[in-house]
């Protein structure tokens, strides 16, 4: 282990202290919480209430460990007894202390596998289980439950409890998205602290006392916060569960895919839980540069449309005023044919801030192939209310990418394009991932067009006007990269396959370009990225792989994340580990 101290001891640098962990001397930064120091050296300390992003009340007592302080010279004694490494002999305390709130100090000894530590854990584990309903077979948390995990590892394996258990409220809908089972609650107070310290809506709390303590929502209030589902994430047991996910799937069947949320320009790091191409839940993934450990409810629940009936599943071509399904080749050919006879100034591209960098790059290539001018290229801006936590006013996940790759002034050309459509100057529009009827165009405007090509994930009214409508892939079905509001380059990964014949957008754009120009050479998303890196200086030297699951700083923006700023303040004050 790299932390192992060399013997005999050499004076540690000012900010490092020597700590003995299970018999081995190591160096740690002074003042580090014991639980984090131990985590660094792969010594996992079981815990329930401790969360690095929340204050530490030390209430679960699961992280109690045996510790000892260095011996001090006795009266009249010049030197203390030293061990073979030259460190003062450790005076082991008969009383275990909590690793979550205590910090490492010079000469400290920690034993996580001693009889004392093991007995204490066994005792706490037993106490946690005596009044717990043990209803794992019907509990959503089963499979990712800390009670299950730690009772296997540290419990006594059998119950000595012969009394009646304490009865508490069950199946309690404390908010629109959260269901509470109080009998399962172990009163770790993580949810209470989250709502108080992070979400600033302290509606959760305890009533009653002793073993009858009940977690509940404030009288007359509901857990309505747009961050309420984080409480279910951090609940170490099955007390708080997502009403949306409840009973939908056993968690061990879920495939976990690391990706990002595309609900707004924040780009919260997200994990999709899916099985057999069906998404069952989404939740936050830790990224201290983007979303910490949190995510808004609206972002994570915005996935049901992905598996819905309203998805476009096959390409359609309009003939004599009616649409018919067509093979991809025919549909793409029809799309290209309609564009061929037109002048460059007669064609416009309306793309989307929801497209990945790779897709936007290909849209740019398409524009170049067709020689479409900047005045006829734009994306549709999408804005909403920012919330001073994570939700960004820019509801497009990749505006920054679009500005870099397609149009430096998003939304500025739309009105002009519409005028030229109305005046007949623009005869064809390629609408990528946007419903034009939401972009200021009226049905009359669209009726004037000679040729309308649309790609989209959902059936929408624009498709009714489209000569060619092409089904594309949702965020959960594709790989690619996006640039978030703070200029971080992040990566999407495919959790599920697109439905029916729907295709990834980059393939559609490549094939459309190919049908028009005959150019090719792109066989994978990596190829697209490579081509982009060659052409766009900002991407030079990068690959899709290099982005990694945590993203990389990419563009300079002056933006900060309100929630992260406050978290940094709490960290500086020592309230949280961070």
């Amino acid at each position, binding site marked *: 282990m790299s932390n192992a101290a060399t013997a005999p001891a050499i004076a540690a640098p000012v900010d490092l202290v020597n700590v003995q962990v299970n018999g081995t001397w190591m160096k740690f930064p002074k003042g580090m919480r014991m639980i984090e120091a131990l985590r660094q050296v792969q010594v996992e300390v079981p815990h329930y209430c401790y969360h690095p992003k929340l204050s530490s*009340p*030390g209430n*679960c007592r699961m992280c109690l460990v045996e510790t000892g302080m260095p011996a001090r010279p006795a009266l009249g004694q010049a030197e203390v007894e030293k061990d073979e490494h030259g460190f003062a002999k450790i005076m082991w305390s008969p009383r275990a202390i909590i690793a979550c709130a205590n910090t490492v100090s010079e000469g400290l000894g920690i034993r996580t596998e001693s009889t004392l530590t093991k007995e204490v854990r066994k005792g706490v584990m037993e106490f*946690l289980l005596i009044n717990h309903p043990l209803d794992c077979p019907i509990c959503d948390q089963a499979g990712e439950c800390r009670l299950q995990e730690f009772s296997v590892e540290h419990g006594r394996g059998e119950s000595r409890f012969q009394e009646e258990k304490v009865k508490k409220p069950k199946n309690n809908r404390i908010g629109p998205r959260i269901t509470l089972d109080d009998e399962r609650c172990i009163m770790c107070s993580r949810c209470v602290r989250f709502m108080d310290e992070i979400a600033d809506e302290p509606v959760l709390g305890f009533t009653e*006392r*002793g073993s009858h303590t009940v977690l509940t929502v404030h009288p007359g209030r509901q857990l309505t916060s747009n961050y309420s589902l984080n409480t279910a994430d951090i609940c170490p047991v099955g007390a708080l569960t997502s009403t949306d996910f409840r009973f939908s799937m056993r968690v061990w069947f879920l495939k976990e895919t690391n990706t990002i949320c595309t609900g707004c320009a924040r780009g919260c790091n997200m994990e999709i839980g899916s099985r057999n191409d069906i998404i069952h839940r989404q939740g936050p993934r830790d990224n201290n540069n983007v979303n910490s450990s949190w995510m808004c409810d609206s972002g994570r629940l915005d996935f049901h449309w992905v598996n819905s009936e309203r998805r476009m599943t096959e390409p359609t071509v309009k003939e004599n005023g009616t649409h018919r399904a067509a093979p991809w080749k025919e549909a793409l050919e029809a799309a290209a044919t309609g564009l061929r006879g037109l002048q460059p100034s007669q064609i416009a591209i309306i793309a989307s801030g929801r497209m990945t960098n790779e897709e936007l790059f290909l849209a740019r290539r398409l524009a170049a192939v067709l020689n479409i001018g900047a005045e006829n290229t734009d994306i549709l801006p999408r804005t909403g209310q920012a919330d001073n936590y994570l939700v960004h006013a820019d509801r497009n996940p990749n505006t920054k990418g679009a500005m870099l790759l397609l149009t430096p002034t998003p939304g500025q050309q739309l009105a002009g394009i519409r005028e030229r459509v109305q005046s007949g100057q623009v005869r064809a529009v390629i609408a990528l991932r946007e419903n034009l009827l939401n972009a200021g165009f009226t049905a009359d405007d669209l009726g004037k067009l000679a040729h309308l090509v649309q790609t989209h994930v959902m059936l929408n009214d624009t498709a009714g006007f489209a000569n060619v409508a092409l089904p594309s892939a949702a965020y959960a079905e594709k790989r690619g990269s996006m640039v978030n509001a703070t200029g971080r380059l992040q990566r999407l990964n495919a959790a599920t396959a697109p439905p029916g014949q729907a295709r990834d957008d980059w393939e559609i754009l490549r094939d459309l370009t190919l049908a028009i120009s005959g150019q090719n050479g792109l066989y994978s998303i990596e190829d697209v990225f490579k081509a982009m890196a060659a052409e766009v200086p900002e991407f030079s030297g990068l690959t899709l792989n290099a982005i990694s699951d945590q993203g990389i700083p990419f563009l300079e923006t002056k933006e900060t994340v309100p929630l992260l700023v406050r978290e940094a303040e709490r960290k500086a004050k020592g309230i949280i580990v961070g």
Partner: protein
Amino acid sequence: MIQYKPGKEPHPKEHRLIFKNVDRVDWDTSIERFLKEGGYEQLKTALKMEKKAIIEEVKTSGLRGRGGAGFPTGVKWTFIPPNNTKPVYLICNADESEPGTFKDRYIIYQDPHQLLEGMTISCFAVGANTAYIYIREEFPEGAQILEKAIAEAKAKGFLGNNILGSGFTLDIYVHRGAGAYICGEETGLIESLEGKRPYPRIKPPYFPAALGLYMCPTIVNNVESLCHVKHIIQMGGAEYARLGTPRNNGTRILCVSGDVVRPGYYEVQVGKVTMGEVINDLCGGLKQGRKLKAVIPGGSSAKVLRADERFNLKQPDGTMKEIGIEDIPMDFDTIAACGSMAGSGGVIIMDDTRDMAWVLNNLNNFYAHESCGQCTPCREGSLWMKKISDRIVAGEATPEDVAQLETIAYQIDGKTICAFGEASAWPTESFVAKFRDELITHTSTKKRGQIFNPVTKVAAAGLKKQPA
């Protein structure tokens, strides 16, 4: 010559300092009456002293906290960080909740100005301009008496702005609790005072002297301790220290309850009377024909002492001496050496008519009811112990249950956030260790392997049935 009400005269072995005015014939709680006997004179003296000098006097006096832990008061005061820039608070802990303890209430009900004077001196010494008296909910009249006393003191210039022209400002507020034992725990009290649930805080980092009320340095002292400060100023620390015995200085009030002829409060010099003198002289002995069975010497959470126990104690000269229960001097260190604690001074005497299973069950009931529920071992363990002792009392337990009861207590002891864990575990630990055979006589091996439903079976007198 002070005249006391008939039947309330102090015993010759008492030394009345704090309780000098309790049960006096011509005494009332008004400030006029207090001033007639030299009231607030010590405040005047103290305000002319250096703050450090006052703290030194208190240190010299050897005063140890009278709330339960017995920590040296003067030393506690020095824990305020020297470079502190935040306001300092002083809190008077008047949440006297330990079963068997009833001394503070008499100070509050009969001599409130003594407390206010002691508090004001203490606040001046530690530099607190705001102080609170956290009084338990069950003393509603006490709160009114204090409010009135504060108003009187303020009117006379002993409180408020620029006290007696010294430039020192102090406001004292009375805050009533809501009926929870845990509010007597100093960090629980602070949380409660801040308007939250009284969940005790972890120490470290939240030592009140550094991070107390509103995260500011806070001194929490018991009512009786604060009253002693007045007398320390009056007598001088060194003179005060001559009362009592070395390391156990001054006087303290013993609250004796249980099976004695005259239960009540007795102020004695610490360590100058023995348990035997308390029982036989101060309290007039046991009831006719009864034999001493056990004593809980320092409030209900203190470990029980058996009447026939022998204690082998190290003497100051290094030799060992064996003594019996009646020879124990009533001081902090000896009672600790005997394996219990002097605690809050609540001495509970039990004679041979007491059934120890019932006594233990009663105590377990209390602690299960009062556990705040914040941390796991105490929350779950205290109720579990209560349920097992319910079954023992109801004759529904097996001998193995007694052993299990003991292991549960040790699973709580030392694992909790605050001292409530020990408080709830010590009765069980000591009763099982010392009265194991008696507890086992309540059990039956025939009950082995049975599923119990104590809710319908518990018929212990005086114990409420659990709602179904």
